[in-house]
């Protein structure tokens, strides 16, 4: 056991910290630190800066822009990025569709999509959930029926985050409605969002933002070469994707930064003493999350998500929420019309998305405890 990082990892940490705090423009970092809704321009510019330095998609295979880093180094990269207020590379590109294409796609589809995905030349949207398929994703009903060298897609997706910016959408579609098990008839299909018959309708959320959308497919014709991997194997790819999603979802660095800013705000308002013990409790829990993430990173086998990542998802989401709740309370009566209250409302999503915390408990009970 050792308190310090190895000399190599310490140097790595310094390198990341220096890059993130000096090479990403201040206006981008300020926007993140102020918890504003990210604009498309901001996300694209930030990710291109990272990509040019080889820092956008470290988890990908090296030949497609990934880095041969240890799990611990990937953790340090992620934490330093969040601490500095650098926007995370768009999750749909960097941690969802990219790794799926890199792992299961043909050489042709990799060449066609991976460089553009890393560089945000394509903004990806996610087409998984449907009105009747939320936590029970395998009950999805959007169909893709082969017609010559095209699939004809019909149905509806929902909760498509930032779909208003999307150029392409990766979808789970039912290609074999007759399959014995409903998981077996699903495929992973890439769809150009400018294709005729595809429409995006925004959904206003409780914080007044338009962060998610419904996407409708009305006889949308998709070339068969846009299929990733094998037909009817999409469920396997989706499980792979969702496992990756959980790992990065704890947002430890970001929560640490917001808690530190909240402490400063409490001092500014002269209420620090009043909130000190609540801050202590939260800092104790954030410390526990931070150290657990470090422990998991150091112990993870390459490429296979540790089941303990469910712990990170549960606690990470709950702490994101608890810290924003604290920020609201510190504002006092002014909270009724404060931006931080909208952030608080928006953060209720964190225990719902990425596999709700109840789904994570099911995973822990089943996979880890054998119950």
């Amino acid at each position: 056991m050792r308190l310090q990082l190895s000399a190599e990892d310490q140097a790595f940490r310094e390198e990341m910290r220096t890059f993130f705090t000096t090479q990403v423009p201040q206006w981008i970092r300020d926007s993140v630190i102020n918890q504003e809704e990210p604009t498309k321009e901001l996300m694209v510019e930030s990710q291109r800066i990272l990509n040019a330095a080889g820092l956008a998609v470290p988890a990908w295979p090296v030949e497609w822009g990934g880095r041969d880093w240890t799990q611990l180094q990937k953790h340090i990269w992620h934490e330093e990025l969040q601490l500095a207020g650098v926007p995370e590379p768009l999750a749909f590109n960097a941690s969802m569709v990219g790794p799926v294409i890199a792992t299961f796609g043909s050489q042709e589809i990799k060449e066609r999509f991976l460089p553009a995905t890393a560089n945000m030349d394509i903004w990806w949207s996610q087409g998984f959930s449907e009105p009747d398929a939320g936590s029970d994703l395998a009950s999805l009903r959007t169909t893709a029926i082969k017609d010559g060298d095209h699939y004809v897609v019909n149905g509806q997706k929902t909760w498509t985050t930032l779909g208003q910016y999307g150029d392409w959408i990766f979808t789970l579609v039912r290609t074999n409605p007759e399959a014995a098990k409903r998981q077996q008839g699903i495929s992973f299909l890439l769809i150009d969002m400018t294709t005729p018959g595809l429409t995006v309708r925004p959904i206003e959320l409780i914080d007044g933002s338009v962060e998610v959308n419904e996407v409708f497919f009305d006889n949308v014709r998709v070339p068969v070469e846009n299929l990733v991997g094998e037909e009817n194997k999409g469920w396997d790819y989706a499980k792979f994707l969702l496992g990756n999603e959980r790992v990065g979802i704890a947002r430890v660095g970001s929560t640490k930064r917001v808690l530190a800013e909240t402490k400063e705000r409490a001092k500014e308002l002269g209420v620090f003493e009043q909130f000190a013990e609540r801050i202590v409790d939260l800092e104790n829990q954030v410390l526990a999350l931070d150290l657990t993430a470090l422990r998991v990173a150091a112990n993870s086998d390459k490429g296979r998500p540790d089941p303990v990542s469910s712990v990170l998802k549960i606690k990470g989401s709950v702490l994101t929420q608890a810290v924003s709740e604290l920020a609201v309370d510190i504002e006092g009566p002014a909270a009724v019309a404060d931006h931080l209250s909208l952030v608080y409302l928006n953060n209720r999503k964190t225990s719902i998305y990425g596999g709700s915390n109840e789904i994570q408990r099911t995973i822990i009970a089943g996979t880890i405890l054998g119950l």
Partner: protein
Amino acid sequence: MDFTIDAEQKALVKAARDLISNVYDSSETRRAITKTEPGFAAWEQLAEMGLLSLPFEATAVETSLVAEELGKVIAPDPFVEAVVFAGGLAAAVGDEALSESIADGSTLAIVAWAEPGSRWSTTPSAVTFADGVLNGVKAPVVQAERADVLIVSAATAEGTRLFVVRDGYSVETVRSIDGSRSGTVTFTNTPAEPLGAGGDQAGVLNLALDRARIAYAHEALGSMQTCLETTVGYLKTRKQFGVTLNSFQALNFRAADMYVALELARSVITWATIVAADEGSTPEAVASAASQAALQVSVAGRHIGQDAVQLHGGIAMTAEYSVGHHLARLTAIEHVIGDGAFHRARLAAVVGEHGVLDPIG
């Protein structure tokens, strides 16, 4: 930052586990032992294996690993009190004779620091030293009656000082809730030798206590792990309504929450040991780490201990079953090392001094 333990440490864990689980081979064995004096039975074997000398020749990592193994079966031997804490003080002041006799098991030393009504303050006021003798009352003092030597903190003209006392005091003993022994020690013109050389020793006492708190947290961690394992085992086998209890999601979710709490507590408590073992750590850093660990013991210990009892149902209320004893031990540990409110207040005094809390040294 590295949480892994090396081959030698793994061997130490295995040896300690084998020894302890042999002496306390069941909850009933432990229960019987706590009912006869002095209430523990592995001491000679711990000494023979060399585990009592660990604080003098190894790091906080090794002592914590052993404490965690003791905690898994809630072994009642006063390893942390006598070896980590009292031994830690003897070593800190450079008393080689006392250190050696603690290390070989010939002397069982206990620190008498708490005073009635003073909560967890380490500043003595009830016990004073003047003209070569101690006067006043210390309580609670774990295993005071069995102790060969007491290390006593006392108010003196030069501040807080530590003294060694071998006899000339009276002890009133009661059984503690965890099956241990708790003494009220009265000093009446009791002759006492100073421990270590002159000057105020508050810093030495506080640092040794914080290091002991971290070792205690590992005992609690071992106990929490057993609580979860026992509960999970029970949910898989106990049948009601014709099915095993793990057919009920409400119960499984509570077990999942216990697991989350356990793993988070493990991270903080293990980190605290790493802080204590690091030569560059200041006493303030060790104090903060000890409070972070103790706060986890308070919150996670209550959660896991209480839910272990609840998820078992009535059987856990019986003295014949194990988890109730674990809840008692977890409750006792928390109130020896300082409860959640105490450690929150201690951390609140320094939480405004840093922005982001960085656990990496």
